[in-house]
């Protein structure tokens, strides 16, 4: 790997956004993801290569550390910010179609439920793994999901619920989606769920953690 890409990957992993950002102290004054990404493009490295070999690996490193309990959420958030700073430079190439994301993931907390911390972590992790993420927020009605799927027909859907009473709402949403899109892949998660419940409501996949969802999506994209 080019030295530049390796540095860029490190910046994403460690959350070094740009030259002026003070975090992490060890990289103070050095170039950040922002500058390094720009340079990489200027050196003629293909945007797709930058994405696949620096940005995604950087996020997946921090994601792995996180899932092993060796990194905190704020560290992951700052990595995500560094990645965003780099992505800014890649934006034109997404628009032109020169590079592509792995797919689109639509996620939301089901209606009646306001818990979104877990959902946000899942969204962030999946985004970091190279997917476009459409976050519908909390208290999301079935219609909203269906509308969004209309816009992104190839998307994979994720539902989150934290209450034993709103788990039941997942079933409603799965039904309404499957009504229109019988083959739609629907991931479900949230503390009170179980594999059994996932089977019962006819969802496609259950994972107790974001890492499981990422693994599943890897297979889908492959």
């Amino acid at each position, binding site marked *: 790997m080019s030295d530049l890409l390796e540095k860029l990957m490190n910046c994403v992993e460690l959350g070094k956004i740009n030259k002026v950002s003070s975090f992490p102290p060890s990289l103070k004054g050095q170039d950040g993801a922002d500058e390094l990404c720009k340079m990489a493009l200027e050196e003629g490295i293909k945007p797709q290569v930058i994405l696949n070999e620096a940005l995604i690996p950087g996020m997946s490193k921090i994601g792995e550390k996180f899932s092993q309990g*060796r990194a905190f*959420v704020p560290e992951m958030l700052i990595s995500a910010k560094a990645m965003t700073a780099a992505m800014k430079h890649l934006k034109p190439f997404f628009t032109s179609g020169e590079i592509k994301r792995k797919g689109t993931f639509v996620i939301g907390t089901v209606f009646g439920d*306001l818990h979104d*911390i877990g959902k946000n972590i899942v969204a962030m992790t999946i985004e970091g793994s190279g997917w476009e993420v459409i976050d519908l927020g909390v208290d999301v009605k079935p219609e909203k999901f269906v509308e969004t799927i209309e816009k992104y027909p190839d998307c994979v859907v994720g539902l989150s619920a934290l209450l*034993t009473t709103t*788990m039941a*709402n997942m079933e409603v949403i799965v039904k309404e989606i499957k009504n229109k899109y019988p083959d739609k892949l629907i991931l479900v998660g949230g503390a009170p769920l179980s594999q059994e419940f996932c089977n019962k409501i006819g969802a496609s996949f259950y994972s107790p953690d974001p890492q499981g969802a990422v693994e599943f999506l890897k297979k889908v994209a492959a």
Partner: protein
Amino acid sequence: MRFNTLSIKKSNDLIFGYSPKPVTTRRGLIIGGGIVYPELNFTLPTMSINDSTLTNITNQYKEIVNGALERALQLEAPGLIFEFETLLEMTQNPQIAIGLVKVMNDVCEEYYVKHGLKSEIRLTPNDLREFERPPKQRTSELLDLMIEVFEGGLNAGGDLLSIESTGGKEVSDDALMNCNIKQLIFALSVLGVRDMKMLWRKMVDICLKKGKIPAGDTACGFGNTAMVLAEKKYIPKVFAAVVRIVTVVRTLVCIEEGAVGPDKDCGYEGVYLKAITGIPISMEGKTSACAHLSPVGNIAGACADLWSNESVQNIKLLSGMAPTAYYEQLEYDTRLMNEAIKEGSASILNLQRLMVNSDIYHDPQALVLAPDVVIQVAGEIVKGKNYIDASIRGALKGLDIIEEAVNSDKLKLEDREVIWIDSLRSEIETIPTDESKFVEETIAEIGTTKFIPAEYGL
């Protein structure tokens, strides 16, 4: 701030079962008067709440109360509290919540009349306002529904009124995930405090009018969220410990406005409130492992007047329904404390010392619940010239104590935890104690899309 001295000045006086200002319920439970009672919490198993399930739901709540009271009778218990925390749909449809209070209170009354067994219902409607984002804390129509449940539920037999109010949560959620202590303190000691004043004035009024007990609030959505995230290793424990201290200042406001206790479970700021104001409190520890794991299983009981399980679904265990089993566990926990109380203060302090030493140096979140730490930190809090200042003082004092414990090798923390002590301290030191300045600074940082200043009188 109304309180500027401590009600309990020595840590030896900060004990379980006794509070300087005991509260007597309608059926004669004296909380904080020398007996620790169980407070049983419960919720529905996986199911929807709608017209077709309402009979089933009503039966379940009835059975839960029946099951616990029957067991209480067999165990010759002195009494207990049921906390009825409404679920969303019950507050949205006040008649459901009110109907359930009535059904449960009828069972309580039956056991009281037939057997002299004393029990009461603590009514805790959930705070609907957070359903709108950004929330309209003062102007939302959802507030009317909540008030309908307060009034109707007390009429139907609830004796204690509580809530886990959520003013400021729209800011704190992100602050927690980012471990942004400045925004967290803003959420709690500016937004939270202002919302508490408005809401609790109303709640206290309603209680006074009806001769009911305005019990207290808890910053569950702040403090316990932080704790659960720390248990999952998502955020540093040091941060969660500081958050816990900052919740004190916010929740104190309900007492300033007239709440008299027992303060609610689902948070651990109660022990600070007891030290500062002398009201009795409900705490939860090991026997709330059904609801969440925690690093404070024993130490949380050190100063409890009620002892709670936070929440358990109404599902079958091998022995019977889970709420009955958990009631039994709470009863035995409190029996142990009550035996110590019978023996007198030396015995109370002996048992308390074991509870404290059990957890104190395993986690900074436990450390800040130790009675002598509480007295020190609370002593700093009451020196605050306003709520922000009080939060800053408490947080800094807490950090000092944590640091000292780390330096003296009593508290072992990973390096990636330890570095947060300094970084939190330096962040906190930049907070202006002047409210309008703090507001201005914060709005500059996060804008006003997340929260509506006017809804907090800003």
